[in-house]
């Protein structure tokens, strides 16, 4: 019984790292109907920006909550700039092209960043400085928690609420939803479509940057290809929750994390990665809108 509970805790903690990545994924899709496959690579860049800035300021030697917040801030700003550049250089020129062109470009950007990362950072794994180390172990009886993972879980819930508020309660959010509804009509209403799309990308990318730092902190081995699998998993989580839906992304990610943990524990560890794609296929076959998705009527 205690082992089952521990597997559950482990599953939620893995799921919350997927949730951090899935939030940005699903938001960009929700607004732009673009599956930004480069999102996993922005996450990787976030981890590297975090590592280099932490090394530069020597945060690894003096871990503190301030160091963590500063590292997060730098990585988020860095990734927001990357997101802006990716949108400006790769996606904006294709705004009027068929959706499939943009999708293929997204895969291209993703591969470009993976290999540019190997050239720039070197392909061997790097150690992520421990900028924040909560004291001691947390445990309830036999049940053990990694304090960092509890924090990550809390942060992903907070970010989910923040995103919900931005999208549904602010002027920027209203503009985003208008652009999402109809680009041309939105610009006729005086909404600066281009800058709204840019901000959407920057917001999504800064979430990926935060995820990069937090995941780097928990699994302190970072490498240029680290974004690929979590990126795909987050995509599956977003589809599972209903792509475009912020709450759905978090629920989908936690569900996926739990499912993986149980499969590894009670069936076979080699099924961990296969499971995500089995779920993806099942969802697409039986409930393409996901758990929380709303059916959109395709405009013809």
């Amino acid at each position, binding site marked *: 019984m205690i*082992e089952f509970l521990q597997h559950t805790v482990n599953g939620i903690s*893995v799921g919350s790292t997927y949730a951090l990545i899935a939030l940005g994924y699903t938001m960009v899709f929700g607004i732009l109907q673009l599956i930004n496959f480069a999102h996993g690579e922005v996450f990787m860049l976030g981890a590297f920006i975090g590592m280099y800035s932490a090394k530069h300021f020597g945060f690894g030697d003096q871990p503190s909550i301030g160091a963590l917040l500063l590292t997060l801030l730098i990585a988020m700003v860095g990734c927001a700039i990357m997101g802006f550049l990716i949108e400006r250089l790769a996606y904006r020129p294709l705004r009027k092209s068929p959706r499939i062109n943009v999708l293929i470009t997204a895969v291209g950007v993703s591969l470009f960043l993976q290999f540019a990362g190997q050239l720039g950072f070197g*392909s061997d794994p790097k150690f992520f400085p421990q900028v924040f180390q909560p004291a001691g172990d947390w445990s309830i009886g036999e049940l053990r928690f990694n304090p960092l993972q509890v924090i990550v879980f809390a942060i992903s819930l907070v970010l989910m609420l923040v995103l919900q508020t931005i999208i549904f309660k602010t002027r920027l959010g209203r503009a985003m939803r208008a652009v999402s509804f109809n680009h041309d009509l939105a610009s006729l209403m005086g909404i600066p479509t281009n800058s709204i799309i840019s901000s959407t990308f920057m917001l999504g990318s800064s979430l990926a940057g935060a995820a990069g730092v937090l995941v780097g902190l928990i699994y302190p*081995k970072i490498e240029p290809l680290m974004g690929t699998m979590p990126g795909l998993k987050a995509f599956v989580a977003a589809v599972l929750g209903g792509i475009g839906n912020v709450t759905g992304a978090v629920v989908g990610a936690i569900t996926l994390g739990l499912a993986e943990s149980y499969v590894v*524990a009670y069936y076979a560890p080699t099924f961990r990665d296969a499971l995500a794609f089995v779920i993806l296929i099942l969802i697409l076959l039986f409930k393409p809108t996901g758990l929380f998705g709303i059916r959109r009527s395709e405009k013809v």
Partner: protein
Amino acid sequence: MSMSSKKLSFLFLALTLASVGCTQKQAADAPAASDVIKVGEVGSMTGTEGTFGVSTHNGIELAIKQINAKGGVKGKKLELISMDDQGKPEEAATAVTKLITQNKVAAILGEVASSRSMAMAPIAQQYQIPMISPSSTNPKVTELGDYIFRVCFIDPFQGTVMAKFAAENLKLKKVAILRDVKNDYSVGLADYFAKKFKEMGGTIVADQAYSSGDTDFKTQLTNIKGKGPEALMVPGYYTEVGLIARQAREAGITVPLLGGDGWDSPKLAEIGGKSVEGSYFSNHYSQEDQSAVVQTFVTEYKKAYNAVPDGLAAMGYDAALVLADAMNRAPDLNSASVRTAIAQTVNFPGVTGTITINSERNAVKPAVVLVVENGQYKYRTTITP
């Protein structure tokens, strides 16, 4: 009309120039080919196991420089042609084909990883080019053909060494295994460890698996913790072992970890930090070995690369020396003669021990066990076959 004919004439001109360029290059190569011996090397210079390839390459390069400085082999200089396989078996196969068919190398050195050596070996065998793997320890590698050799011991021995060490030196009775099922090397080591450890009266209390590339191992470690082992055998690569060690401590497993030569990288201690302290792994050599051969090698290597040579660098160095030694003893440089000469290597004084090639084309030599202390890999003991 005039435009397209202009384009055509340009194209023609370009083609002519290109073909002239090619013939000139070949003409320049031809005389050079007679006074150098080309040796091909395939390694993972980039990719997640980049340090494996780079260390091995440095070792090989150092050996070849020293051989050339002493006058080369049969009066000819050795020329090293290195190819990067990015840590992918399919790239390794392409690289070895290119080295043999286009560069016309006399012999192949590589790979580190067994899975990649096994992708290369059938090709080297098909073209009958001798291939020496510096450090692929899976038994199947040299079974792929009589042109395939290695200068390291094999998994049965490495697994056996750690089982002997656990049972005799550490006096353990209960050990858990966490193996990388995607990696032939890890599976081989785990199997032979389990076999020997049971023979010596111990029990394997848990046998869990992961896939290389995973970052979360808590589920497996939770299962292992429940079984209360006295040590945890993790015969994987340093890329995962560092994270496994950390998460084992987080899960409340405090016993030492055991492993093989795949741990041998400074990154292990960096990523694992305090969690890998007091853990043991088997290796090919220790830089603390006071013998003259080892100390000269360590000094020369430090001078050339400004780094302490790890086990893989030493293996690369030995592989190149064994090849050069065989070429010197061979009556001529035909690949068949070189092959026979490598097979007849007896008591060659290598950095990683005295190397004798047996009838299965494997090296017979002792292994050392190292312990992690303050982030350094300290010599603990030597275990003979």
